[in-house]
C-alpha cells in the first residue's frame, strides 16, 4: 500500500502541494487527473522518493521513503518503474542500453538474453528493430514509448506513468492503455498514472483521484467520478470552459 500523508511542497516560496493525502492499495490502478501545472508530476516524484516533501511523509508498505538511503534505497527502487513526462532517455546510450539499463547493471543475464527481453518490451509498445538507434534519432512519440519500455522492463511491482499517451497517435495511445491495463491484470502491478485524457483514464483506472488547488479533492471509481455532482470535477471531466475552475 502506498500512502501519502499530509504532503506539503513549495518551490521558491510558491506552494504547489498543501496537505495532500492519498492512499493507493496494492494491485490497484490509480489515475491522477488535474489541470496542467497543478502538481501531478511533483506528486509522482514524491512517491518514488526523488523529491522530498517539506512536510509530511510517504509510506510504501509502511516504509518511510524519505528515510531510506544507500543500499536500502537501491533495493527499494528496484520495485519501481517510472515513465517520465519528457521520457528522460539517456542521450549517450542506445535504445538497447536504455531499455535494458537495469538488466545490464543489476542482472547476470547474458547479452543475448538481455537483447531478447528488450526486444520483447519494445514489441509491447509497438516498436521493433530500433535497438541500435540513439534517442536523438527518434521522434517524440517513439521516445516516449521507449521510455515506457524502460519503465516496464524489470516487471516492477509498482509503475508510475506520467502522461503515457500524451504526444502519441490515438491508435497507439489505445494500445498503450491496453498495455497498462494488461500489466495490471496479468502481473498484478500497482500502477499510478497521471493523465489529462479522460478516455484513457476511464479505461485504465480502478480509482480516479482529482488533484485541485494543491490537494486531492476526490477519489472514486470511474463511474463515481463520471457522475460526481462536485462542480469542479464535473467541469474537468466534461472539459468545459465555464464553471468554477477559471483563470489562465
Amino acid at each position: 500500500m502506498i500512502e501519502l500523508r499530509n504532503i506539503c511542497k513549495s518551490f521558491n516560496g510558491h506552494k504547489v502541494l498543501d496537505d495532500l493525502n492519498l492512499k493507493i492499495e496494492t494491485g490497484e490502478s490509480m489515475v491522477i487527473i488535474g489541470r496542467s501545472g497543478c502538481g501531478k508530476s511533483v506528486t509522482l516524484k514524491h512517491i518514488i522518493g526523488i523529491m522530498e516533501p517539506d512536510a509530511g511523509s510517504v509510506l510504501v508498505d509502511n516504509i518511510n521513503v524519505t528515510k531510506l538511503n544507500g543500499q536500502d534505497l537501491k533495493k527499494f527502487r528496484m520495485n519501481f518503474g517510472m515513465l517520465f513526462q519528457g521520457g528522460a532517455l539517456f542521450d549517450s546510450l542506445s535504445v538497447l542500453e536504455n531499455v535494458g539499463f537495469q538488466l545490464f547493471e543489476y542482472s547476470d543475464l547474458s547479452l543475448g538474453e538481455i537483447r531478447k527481453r528488450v526486444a520483447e518490451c519494445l514489441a509491447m509498445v509497438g516498436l521493433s528493430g530500433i535497438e541500435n538507434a540513439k534517442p536523438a534519432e527518434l521522434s517524440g512519440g517513439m521516445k516516449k514509448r521507449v521510455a515506457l519500455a524502460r519503465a516496464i522492463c524489470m516487471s516492477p511491482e509498482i509503475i508510475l506513468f506520467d502522461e503515457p499517451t500524451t504526444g502519441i497517435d490515438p491508435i497507439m495511445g489505445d494500445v498503450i492503455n491496453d498495455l497498462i491495463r494488461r500489466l495490471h491484470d496479468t502481473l498484478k502491478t500497482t500502477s499510478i498514472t497521471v493523465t489529462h485524457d479522460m478516455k484513457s483514464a476511464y479505461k485504465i483506472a480502478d480509482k480516479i483521484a482529482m488533484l485541485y488547488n494543491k490537494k486531492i479533492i476526490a477519489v472514486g471509481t470511474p463511474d463515481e467520478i463520471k457522475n460526481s455532482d462536485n462542480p469542479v470535477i464535473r467541469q474537468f471531466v466534461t472539459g468545459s470552459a465555464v464553471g468554477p475552475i477559471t483563470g489562465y
Partner: protein
Amino acid sequence: MLSFARKVSIDSWRFTLNKIKKFFIYAGALAILLARSIFWIFASRARKFQILDQMNKIGVSSFPIIFLISLFTGMVLALQSAYQMQKVSAEMYIASLVSLSLTRELGPVLTALIVAGRCGAAITAELGTMRVTEQVEALETLSTDPVEYLVVPRFIALLVMVPLLTICADFFGIVGGYLIGVGKLNISHAMYIKMTYTPLAIKDLVTGLIKSLSFAGIICLVSCFEGLNSEGGAEGVGRATTASVVKSFVLIIVADCFFTALFYFIMR
C-alpha cells in the same frame, strides 16, 4: 561624514564575511561530494568501459593541446631567461631553470588549467543537460546513484589522466627548452642534458604530481557539482559551465599556492 564612512566600512566587512561564508559552504558541499564519490568507488563494481571511455575523452584527446602548449611554454621560458642569463654568462643554467619550473610548477598548473577548460566544462555541460532533462532523476529511479554512475568514472579517469598528462607536459616543455637552448643559444647537447637532470630531484617530480592529483580532484568535484546542481534549462547549463571553469581555475590556483607553501616549509 564620519558615520557614512563607518557605514561603508561595516558594509564592506559584511560583504567580505558573506563571501567567506559562501566559500566555506561551497567547500563543504564539495567535501560531501568527495566523500560520496569515495564511498561509491569502494561500494560499487568498477565500470571498466565507462572509465576507459572517460580516460579517452579526458586524456587522449587532451594530449595534442597539452603537447603544443607545453612545448611552446618551454621555448618561451628558455628565451625569456636567456636575456638575464646571457648578461652573466650563465646560459647553461637555462636548462635547470626550465626543468625545475616545469616539473614543480608550470607542468601541473598548465595541465590542470587546460583540462579544467577543456574537460571540466564538457563534464558540467553534459551533467547539467542530464539534470535539466530529468535524466539524473531517471537514473535514480533506475536504482542507480548519480554519483556512482556519473561522478565515479570521471573521478577515476581524471585522477589517472591528469598526472599522466602532467608528466607529458613536463617532458615536452623540457624538449621545447632544449630546442631553443641547443638550437639557438649555443648550449651543447651534453651540457643541456646534464644541467636538466642534475638539479632535478625526485621530490620535484613528486611534489608536482601531488599537486596535479589534487588539481584533478578539484576539476572533477567542481565540474560534477556544478553540473549536477544546475537548473533552469539551457541558460542554466550555460551559467553552470561558466561557473565551473571559473571556480576550478580559482581553486586550482589557491590549491597551488597552498601546496607550494606547504612543500616550502616542510622540505626546506
